[in-house]
C-alpha cells in the first residue's frame, strides 16, 4: 500500500526541486545576459537576436517556476483539507525547525550580496541600485529555499 504521507512528501520535494532548478537557471541567464550585454555594447555589436533568444528562454524558465509554485500550492491546499496530511506535512515540527534554520543562510546571503556588488563595482561600475536591491532579495530568498530543500531532502 502506498503511504499517502510519503507519496505527498515525495511530490512536494519533486516540485521544490523543479522550481529551484528553473529559478537558478533563470538567475544565471539574467547575470550572463547582463555581463554579455555590456560587452556587446562596448564593442558596438548587435545583441538584439541573442537578447530575444535569452528573453524567450527566461520567460519559459519563469513560467516553469510558476507552474511548480502552483503545483506546490495545490498540494498545500490538498494537505490542509486532510487531517492526517495536515498534521504530518503542514504541522510537521521538523519542517518548522528547518524553516527556522534556513533563515541563517538566507540572512548571510542577503548581507553578502551588496558587498559582492561593491567588489564588482571596483572593476565594473554599477549604477543601478534597483538591480542591487532586487538581486539581494532574489539571492536571499534563493538561499532560504535551497537551504530548506537540502535539509528536507538530506
Amino acid at each position, binding site marked *: 500500500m502506498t503511504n499517502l*504521507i*510519503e507519496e505527498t512528501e515525495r511530490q512536494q520535494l519533486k516540485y521544490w526541486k523543479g522550481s529551484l532548478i528553473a529559478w537558478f537557471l533563470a538567475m544565471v541567464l539574467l547575470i550572463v545576459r547582463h555581463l554579455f550585454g555590456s560587452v556587446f555594447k562596448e564593442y558596438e555589436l548587435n545583441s538584439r537576436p541573442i537578447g530575444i533568444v535569452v528573453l524567450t528562454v527566461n520567460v519559459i524558465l519563469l513560467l516553469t517556476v510558476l507552474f511548480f509554485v502552483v503545483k506546490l500550492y495545490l498540494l498545500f491546499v490538498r494537505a490542509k483539507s486532510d487531517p492526517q496530511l495536515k498534521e504530518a506535512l503542514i504541522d510537521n*515540527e521538523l519542517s518548522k*525547525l528547518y524553516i527556522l534554520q534556513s533563515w541563517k543562510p538566507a540572512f548571510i546571503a542577503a548581507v553578502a550580496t551588496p558587498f559582492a556588488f561593491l567588489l564588482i563595482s571596483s572593476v565594473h561600475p554599477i549604477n543601478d541600485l534597483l538591480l542591487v536591491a532586487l538581486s539581494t532579495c532574489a539571492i536571499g530568498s534563493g538561499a532560504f529555499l535551497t537551504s530548506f530543500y537540502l535539509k528536507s531532502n538530506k
Partner: protein
Amino acid sequence: MSERTIKNKLKVFRAMHDWTQEELARRVCVTRKTINTVEKGKYIPSTYLALKLAKVFQVPVEELFQLDSEFIPEE
C-alpha cells in the same frame, strides 16, 4: 557543560513490534524522515511527539527516551 543529547530506544521498540519507520510514521502522523532523524538522535522531538510515540508503543515516555549524560539537578 555537557552536550544536550537524549538516548532513545525507538529502533528497539520498532523492531519488537515489527514496524518499519514508514509504518511508525503513519501511526503517529509524521513523515518517515522525522522518525529517522529522531531514531538517529539528530533531532530531539517535542514533548507532544515523544508522548505520541510512547502511546503507540504503550510504554512510559521515559522508557523510550532517556538523558544521555548524567544530569544532576541543582538544589
